[in-house]
């Protein structure tokens, strides 16, 4: 557990988190490893976990009828994905597929939700770490939507 706590504290998402909160969060964490090409999450499935990437890359994909899977974002070490654990109905809204052998910390969403509910100070701290990620993803998605490099735009 000590090793996991150290790994967690070194990940940018939890860096600087209060030691007590870190210990609580650590109780919801486990190491995870995925082969290249593995699906970590499927659209529509229960979002029980979120992931802090340590090594490897993950493609977030949406499949459109007749067009196959389209990757809309790739993530790498230091990135976080899967905020759906925080918002009902706690369901994945995209597929997450590894591009390389990937190592991550998998956080049990229900476990962390309960701890955040029990300690609002911890919940607020974690929320302050998640919100910039959500806002940044929203912003970059808007720019992608502008299709800036398209000569017809």
């Amino acid at each position, binding site marked *: 557990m000590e090793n996991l706590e150290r790994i967690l504290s070194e990940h940018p998402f939890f860096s600087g988190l209060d030691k007590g909160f870190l210990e609580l969060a650590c109780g919801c964490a486990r190491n995870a490893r995925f082969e290249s090409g593995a699906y970590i999450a499927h659209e529509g499935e229960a979002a029980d976990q979120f992931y802090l990437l340590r090594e490897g890359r993950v*493609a977030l*994909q949406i499949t459109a009828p007749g067009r*196959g*899977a*389209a*990757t*809309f*974002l*790739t993530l*790498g070490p*230091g990135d976080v994905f899967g905020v759906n654990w925080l918002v009902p109905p706690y369901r994945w809204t995209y597929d997450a*597929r590894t*591009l390389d052998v990937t190592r991550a910390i998998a956080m049990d969403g229900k476990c962390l939700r309960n701890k955040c509910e029990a300690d609002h100070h911890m919940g607020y701290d974690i929320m302050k770490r998640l919100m910039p990620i959500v806002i940044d993803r929203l912003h*970059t998605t808007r*720019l*992608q939507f*502008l*299709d*800036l*490099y*398209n*000569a017809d735009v």
Partner: protein
Amino acid sequence: MVPRIAHVRRRRHDAPDAWTLELDMADGAHVDYAPGQFNMLTAFGVGEAAISMSGDPATGPLIHTIRAVGPVSRALTELKPGEPIGVRGPFGVGWPMAAAEGKDVVLVAGGLGMAPLRPALYRLLGERSRYGKVTLLFGSRRPEDIVFRHEVENWRGRFDIDVDVTVDHAGADWRGHVGIVTTLIARLDLDPAKTIAMVCGPEVMMRFVSMALCDRGIAEESVWLSMERNMKCAIGHCGHCQLGPTFICRDGPVFTYRRLKPLLGVKEL
């Protein structure tokens, strides 16, 4: 100014809507230019357009990479080897190559914005010992739209430059980055105090790239942008390319973000 005559030596398809023309001046002269400068190219009987040089200023023929977006640029891209073309230039102020000496250099290109940055990259690689760490971040629309693709792959294989490519849209078979080019800036390992950035791409992209670079600690006067406006005379007389108090053709096309920031914030300017 009367255009000089050149002939198309070679024409290469570089992206779905972009072609690269290699030109020979009819009088055999070598055209000296600085990375980031541009020429006015004439498609005879159609018109004239401002096009940046995209070749190596140190060697070889005059090279321009052109995207077919309007009648003039389309006519230019349709010129065949041996056909004549008019050349006025070089014009404008180029990239701050002297100021970049001894510093780390980050090039951020979006789409065909890679073309005006390519001469700077040739200079950086040709005089490699004069510069610190060199990084190229390149955003494109789709994998098939990556301009100079083979060359970018060669740069990726070199040990003296870091290259990261991302696309906005990709199928499941693309194994590279997906996401706008600013996502690469967040992951950059850089020393902001000794870094100069050179940015070229659509204006919106440059606005957000500049903000992202400054968020990483790079000074506004160390971020340089190459602007594109409707250039007609190229010598600051006609006013078509005016952006507030500046003329892009005469005072630019390369400016610091510090100078452009107030202007970029003005809607519809």
